[in-house]
């Protein structure tokens, strides 16, 4: 059953519930796919075939015992390597955490396990989620399934490439400034950053605590909603968690109804700076929504102009503090500069050896921004901008039910293209960052292929805080119409990777792989 992996998670759930397939078969099919193609894609840092198969077996037994199981029980999933997984290595794409095996599960991971989703393994990312290309992973980049010479987006390029290359129907990503949405855009997949506080951060290794949010990475809007429902909801272990039920995302995705909805086009997030083909697909997508019954309004969010600057003060500041704990004292890498080194010298040597350039760059930026005498000018000002952005969203949402823009200004670029120019890399997140600063939910859905390079472009939807269901209504409506126009999902047009790699790797490949550097 070679097409098993090409089903949507929703279809897999149906087939499992009908006992047409077993979770064991499904999980094995994905492990085979990983063995076949991940040598080229490198979405996984660690594959846990044994653990996934054991979980699949358990679910199958429970199902045949007649137990009523959660909707996604038995559907395998990949998890970004930034989430703590008990008994499974968690490196955050960094050398400094090489070999660390957490003694506890992130709340989100606990929920995946409780809902019966076999965890296939841990997915590649830019080191500590700092980057837009996975080129900053200490273990080598992930490759875009559309063109292996190109970046899959970042930081969650592993998650997007994993679902985009059918190595899993579902993946967990995290989004601090666009790390779920931008990879989704450049790989032709779907990704949601829920409302801040909508999904527990307990066990998410923090980059910037006030911005980080975990969410679903999938191939369809409905699949994202199904996964969102599993991982969302209040967690007493996370003080910033919202104590309210998960918004009705699945229902909204199924109804795909945008009639009468006011779609706000953000003036500051279109036009100049956006690749022509990306902009063109965006404009067409808006037309599709109008056809579906939505109304278009133009809104202005003038403070968004300063979002990137504010973000690159707040994020490094929080990161410089969050990453201070990696000091070789209790876990992870330990480098001895000399036999009789003091604790302080070991800390310094370990951090020098264990962190990559981008991480060091941001730690230095943040340390500087928080320094006494500079705090008000940098961190303080950035917080004021953040407030203005929040206010801009509030007034925009008075005029529109959702806001839309292209997700990323460009399609996937080639490896190395932006590595020497951090600023142009940072600009990848120009349209996604405002949502993180304001805590509002956002989603990226495929809008088509850009004419000039034939690569996927993304359509971003933003909704008011806690109204995540609106993302799914708009995303599903657009998906429906675009799929109809294309005669099938966009990913059907992606290269088939299997032929390129099958046979290149033995079937033991999945078991032998670990987080070792490549």
């Amino acid at each position, binding site marked *: 059953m070679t097409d098993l992996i090409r089903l949507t998670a929703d279809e897999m759930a149906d087939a499992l519930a009908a006992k047409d397939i077993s979770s064991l078969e499904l999980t094995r099919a994905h492990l085979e796919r990983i063995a076949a193609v991940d040598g080229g894609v490198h979405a996984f840092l660690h594959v846990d075939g044994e653990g996934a198969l054991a979980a699949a077996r358990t679910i199958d037994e429970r199902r045949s015992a007649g137990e009523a199981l959660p909707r996604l029980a038995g559907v395998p999933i990949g998890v970004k390597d930034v989430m703590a997984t008990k008994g499974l290595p968690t490196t955050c794409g960094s050398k400094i955490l090489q070999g660390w095996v957490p003694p506890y599960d992130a709340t989100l991971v606990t929920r995946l396990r409780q809902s019966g989703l076999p965890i296939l393994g841990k997915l590649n990312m830019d080191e500590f989620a700092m980057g837009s290309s996975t080129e900053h992973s200490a273990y080598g980049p992930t490759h875009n399934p559309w063109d292996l010479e190109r970046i899959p987006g970042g930081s969650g390029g592993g998650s997007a490439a994993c679902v985009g290359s059918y190595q899993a129907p579902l993946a967990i990503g995290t989004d601090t400034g666009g790390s779920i949405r931008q990879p989704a855009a450049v790989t032709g997949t779907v990704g949601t950053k829920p409302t801040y506080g909508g999904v527990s951060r307990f066990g998410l290794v923090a980059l910037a605590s006030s911005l980080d949010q975990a969410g679903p990475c999938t191939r369809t809007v409905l699949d994202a909603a199904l996964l969102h429902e599993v991982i969302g909801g209040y967690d007493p272990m996370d*003080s910033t968690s919202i104590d309210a039920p998960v918004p009705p995302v699945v229902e909204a995705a199924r109804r795909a109804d945008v009639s009468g909805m006011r779609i706000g086009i953000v003036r500051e997030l279109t036009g100049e700076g956006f690749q022509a083909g990306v902009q063109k697909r965006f404009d067409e997508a808006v037309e599709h929504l109008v056809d579906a019954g939505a109304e278009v309004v133009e809104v202005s969010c003038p403070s968004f102009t300063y979002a990137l600057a504010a973000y690159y003060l707040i994020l490094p500041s929080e990161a410089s503090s969050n990453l201070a704990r990696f000091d070789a004292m209790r876990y992870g890498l330990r480098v001895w500069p000399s036999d009789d080194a003091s604790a302080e010298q070991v800390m310094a040597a370990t951090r020098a050896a264990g962190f990559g350039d981008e991480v060091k760059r941001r730690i230095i930026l943040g340390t500087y921004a928080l320094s006494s005498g500079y705090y008000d000018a940098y961190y303080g000002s950035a917080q004021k901008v953040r407030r203005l952005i929040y206010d801009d969203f509030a007034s925009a949402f008075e005029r529109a039910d959702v806001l839309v823009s292209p997700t990323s200004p460009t399609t996937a670029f080639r490896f190395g293209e932006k590595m020497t120019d951090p600023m142009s890399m940072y600009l990848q997140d120009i349209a996604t960052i405002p949502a993180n600063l304001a805590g509002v939910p956002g989603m990226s859905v495929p809008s088509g292929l850009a004419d000039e390079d034939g690569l996927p472009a993304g359509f971003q939807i933003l909704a008011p805080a806690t109204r995540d269901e609106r993302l799914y209504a708009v995303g599903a409506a657009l998906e429906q119409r675009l799929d109809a126009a294309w005669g099938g999902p966009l990913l059907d047009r992606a290269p088939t990777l299997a032929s390129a790699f099958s046979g290149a790797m033995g079937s033991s490949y999945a078991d032998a792989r670990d987080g070792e550097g490549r």
Partner: protein
Amino acid sequence: MATTTTTEVTIPFVEALAAYEPVLGLEVHVELNTATKMFCGCATEFGAEPNSQVCPVCLGLPGALPVLNEKGVESAIRIGLALGCEIAPWCRFARKNYFYPDMPKNFQTSQYDEPISHDGHLDVELEDGSTYRVEIERAHMEEDTGKSLHIGGATGRIHGATHSLVDYNRAGIPLIEIVTKPMVGAGERAPEVARAYVAALRDIVKALGVSDARMDQGSMRCDVNVSLMPKGADRFGTRSETKNVNSLRSVERAVRYEIERHAAVLASGGSVVQETRHWHEDTGVTTSGRVKSDADDYRYFPEPDLVPIAPSAELVESLRATLPENPALRRRRLQSSWGYSDLEMRDVVNAGLVETIGETVAAGASPAGARKWWSGEVARRANAAGTDVVPYAASVGVTAAHVAELEGLISSGRLNDRMARDVWDGVLAGEGTPTQVADARGLRLVEDSGAIEGAVEKVIAANPDIATKVRDGKVQAAGALIGQVMKELKGQGDAAAVRALILARLTGAPSAE
């Protein structure tokens, strides 16, 4: 344990005070006795197996997040209220960033510019009965760090150690840091004011029931800031910060020493270095620690993993209603109920014995008896051991019940005073309860009147000259007879009864009342 530090020059206290006005600042850390830590569910029991009370949160494992202990906040508010502070209607935690192996996250979750309570005061009573008002700047919440144990060095300090061990059981235990405003005008009484303030603070947090406030166990720790300014000046001098001064006696001594040291530096035309200093309990001196500089930048910023704290006015008022009687007022009430003189009460207060005596009286002892035993032999021995009475008593296992029991043995006529002192020696030596010690040592007044009469007859017969003197009215001569009778009775006679019997026998005075 020889400390190899050089003693610095000091000048006599009186001379120092003649030229300079001391300015004090005290930072007291109080460990709350909540059942669980400030930001996780780990137990806070003192003395547990190292690293047995830890979890991903207090170990600062990647991904772990803090959740605020509501009880800790309530205790913080109650301390603030007891110190007459204003309670902030909205405040936040901040991160204090610095690297140290006993700090799991390499930042301490603390409060910075938004403390939960601020601007209060505490009136402390001094030995002469006067009152000094200590202005409180703030009382804020923070978490404790782990505890480092340096192995291989001579003094337990990191210098010279071959390696260090860290116990994270203490990491995350809730602390309240109480910071005074600069204390001026105390003059020569500055050391006494400092001690009295810390004692008063300890009494308050104990009365609130929010902390054990055991300085010997580190559940109350004191940093002493001292500076001097020339008399009549209006600008404070450079201060030193003496860390971890951990007994009332040491607080007083450290302040005194620093005044003498600063004065010597200033008098010789030097300038005081702004630095942290270590207090040496054994030698009674401070030594230079780390020089404070602009490089000490903790890069505070609001803790994004916690939400702001906004205690409602209702909560604050309901907590205010739970405040116990002010310890100073309570002391005045107890003094009159115990019938102590001002001097006696002050001794008791200064020795930190109010609670202990209260417990002893509650256990059935007379207030006079309770004071006699606690302020007497126990205090003398504590002093000899260089510690305070209460921790000393705890260390040798002496309790209020023991004193009450001893008193009972006297009033029931089983022991006389001399025997009671013997028994007390035994109790202090850890030989058991007073009854056990009396039994073991065979101490019991002779109750057999025949035996006493026999001994009296024998002694009178053997000392006809003395007997005649007594008969002739020289009553004081009876003392020699009493001593001999007591000897006959091997010390186990009731001296008063013996005296009465001798006088009755020789002068016809009534022998008993």
